[in-house]
C-alpha cells in the first residue's frame, strides 16, 4: 500500500498527527502493533493540565488548552472534557513558598494562567479538603477528559477524512529507498514519502533503526479507580510536596495516581501492581480527605509509557534521515498536548517549520551523548 505519510503508533499522538495532515489534504496510513489506545493513550489519567509544566512546554500547553476548550470543532466530540481547574495544594509555609516561586517564574515569562490562592479561597473551592491546608496554586482552565473517548474521537474524525488505521499490525523491517520509506509488516508492505514515529514507549526502537538512539525508558504508571461516589470535589487535585493526583470523574468515580511506577516486563508487556506504593498513595488521599477512608478501590492498572531523562518530549524532524519525524517521550504528561503536537508535526512535514517554539524538543539534544 502506498501513501503520503506513514505513521507508526495509533495512540493519541499518531491519531492527532494523522488528523491534522488529513485536514490539509494529505494521505495517511496509521499502523499499530496492538489495538489503538492499548497502552498509555488508553490507560492514562486524562489530565488536561497546564499547571506546573516544564517552562519549555508552556507555549505548547497554552495553545493545547485553547484547542481543548474548543475540541468539538476539531474532532466532533467534546471527549467528555471538563474544565474544573487543576490545583496544587500547600500544606505549610514552605509549600507556599515553593508555589509562590513557581507563580513568579510564570509571571516573569509573561504567563498568567497559574494563580496563587490563599486559605479562604482554597476552602471555598474544595470545602471537602482536610482543614490543615493553607493555600494553593491553581490553573482554572485546566481539567480532564476521558482518554479512550478522546482517542476514539480523533481516530474517527481522521478516518472520516480518509485516514486508514491498521491495528494489530506489527512492523518487521523498515528501509529507505531514495527518499521513500518501505515498511514490511505482519499485514503486508507499506510505502510512503514520509515516516512518523509516534510509537510511544516503543519509539526508541524506531529511533535506533534511524541511527539516532535516544535514552527512552519504558515505565508503567499505576492508577487506581474507586466505586462511584456522590459528587464532592471539582478541581483535579495535586499537592505541592507529595505524590498525589486525584480527580472525581463525571460518573462519580475517583481516579487516583501520582507518578507511581509499577513493575514492568517490557518484553512481555506485563505490568505488576506495586501495592506498597498504592498503600502510600491511599494514605496520602486519606490525609487530604479523611472522609474517603471507607471508599472502595475497584481496579488498579498500569499503562506503559516512554520517559526521557529531561522529562520533556522529542518533537522534531529526524537528524539522520530525510522525511522522518518523531513525537514521543512525553514522560507521562502527553495527553493534554496531543492536539497541538499533531498540528506541529503536520506543519513540520508540510511547511518545514512550526509556528510554536519547539527547539527544546529537538532529538539532536541527545546526539552528543553518543560516544
Amino acid at each position, binding site marked *: 500500500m502506498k501513501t503520503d505519510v506513514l505513521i507508526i503508533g495509533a495512540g493519541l499522538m499518531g491519531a492527532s498527527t494523522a488528523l491534522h495532515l488529513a485536514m490539509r489534504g494529505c494521505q495517511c496510513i496509521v499502523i499499530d502493533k496492538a489495538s489503538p489506545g492499548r497502552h498509555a493513550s488508553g490507560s492514562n489519567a486524562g489530565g488536561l493540565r497546564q499547571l506546573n509544566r516544564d517552562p519549555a512546554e508552556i507555549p505548547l500547553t497554552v495553545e493545547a488548552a485553547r484547542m481543548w476548550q474548543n475540541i468539538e470543532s476539531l474532532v466532533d466530540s467534546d471527549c467528555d472534557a471538563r474544565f474544573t481547574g487543576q490545583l496544587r495544594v500547600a500544606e505549610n509555609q514552605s509549600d507556599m513558598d515553593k508555589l509562590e516561586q513557581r507563580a513568579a517564574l510564570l509571571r516573569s515569562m509573561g504567563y498568567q494562567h497559574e494563580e496563587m490562592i490563599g486559605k479562604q479561597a482554597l*476552602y471555598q473551592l474544595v470545602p471537602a479538603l482536610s482543614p490543615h491546608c493553607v493555600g494553593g496554586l491553581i490553573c482554572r482552565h485546566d481539567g480532564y477528559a476521558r482518554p479512550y473517548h478522546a482517542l476514539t474521537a480523533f481516530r474517527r474524525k481522521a478516518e472520516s477524512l480518509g485516514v486508514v488505521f491498521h491495528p494489530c499490525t506489527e512492523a518487521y523491517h523498515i528501509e529507505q529507498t531514495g527518499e521513500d520509506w518501505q515498511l514490511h509488516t505482519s499485514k503486508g508492505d507499506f510505502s510512503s514519502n514520509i515516516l512518523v514515529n509516534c510509537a510511544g514507549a516503543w519509539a526508541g526502537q524506531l529511533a535506533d533503526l534511524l541511527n539516532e538512539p535516544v535514552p527512552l525508558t519504558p515505565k508503567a504508571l499505576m492508577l487506581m479507580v474507586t466505586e462511584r*461516589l456522590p459528587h464532592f*470535589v471539582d478541581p483535579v487535585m495535586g499537592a505541592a510536596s507529595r505524590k498525589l493526583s486525584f480527580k472525581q470523574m463525571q460518573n*462519580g468515580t475517583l481516579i487516583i495516581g501520582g507518578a507511581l511506577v509499577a513493575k514492568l516486563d517490557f518484553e512481555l508487556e506485563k505490568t505488576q501492581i506495586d501495592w506498597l506504593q498504592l498503600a502510600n498513595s491511599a494514605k496520602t488521599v486519606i490525609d487530604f480527605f479523611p472522609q474517603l477512608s471507607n471508599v472502595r478501590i475497584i481496579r488498579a492498572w498500569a499503562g506503559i509509557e516512554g520517559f526521557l531523562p529531561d522529562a520533556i518530549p522529542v518533537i522534531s524532524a529526524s537528524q539522520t534521515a530525510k522525511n522522518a519525524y518523531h513525537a514521543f517521550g512525553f514522560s507521562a504528561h502527553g495527553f493534554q498536548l496531543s492536539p497541538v503536537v499533531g498540528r506541529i508535526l503536520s506543519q513540520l512535514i508540510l511547511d518545514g517549520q512550526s509556528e510554536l517554539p519547539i527547539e527544546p524538543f529537538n532529538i539532536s539534544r541527545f546526539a552528543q551523548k553518543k560516544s
Partner: protein
Amino acid sequence: MFKQFSDSTTNTIEVVLNGQAIQVTQGISVAAMILAQGLRFNRTTPVSNSKYAPFCMMGVCYDCLMVIDGKPNQRACSIRVKQGMKIDTQQGVGPALRTSVGG
C-alpha cells in the same frame, strides 16, 4: 417472597432496618434477612435508578450493596446480622460525603 423453613433457629436479635427496630433470626446474612422481611429491593442503581435485589448470594454480583452501620456499598450477602446493626437501603451511589469542615 421467602420464609424460614420449619427447622430454623428461633433465636432472634434486634437490628434497625431503614430506621425501624425489628427482631430477626440470628446468624443469617443481611441479604437473607431483608428477603425474609419482605423488603423487595436493597438499593437503587446509580445509572438508571432501577431497583435491585440480591441475585447471586455468594459475593460475586455486587447487586446486594447496602448501607450498613453508615458504610455504603456493603455486600449484604457476605455480612451476617449483628445485634444493634443499622441497615439501610442504598440510594444510587449512597449518602453524601462530608464536604465541609466539621459538617
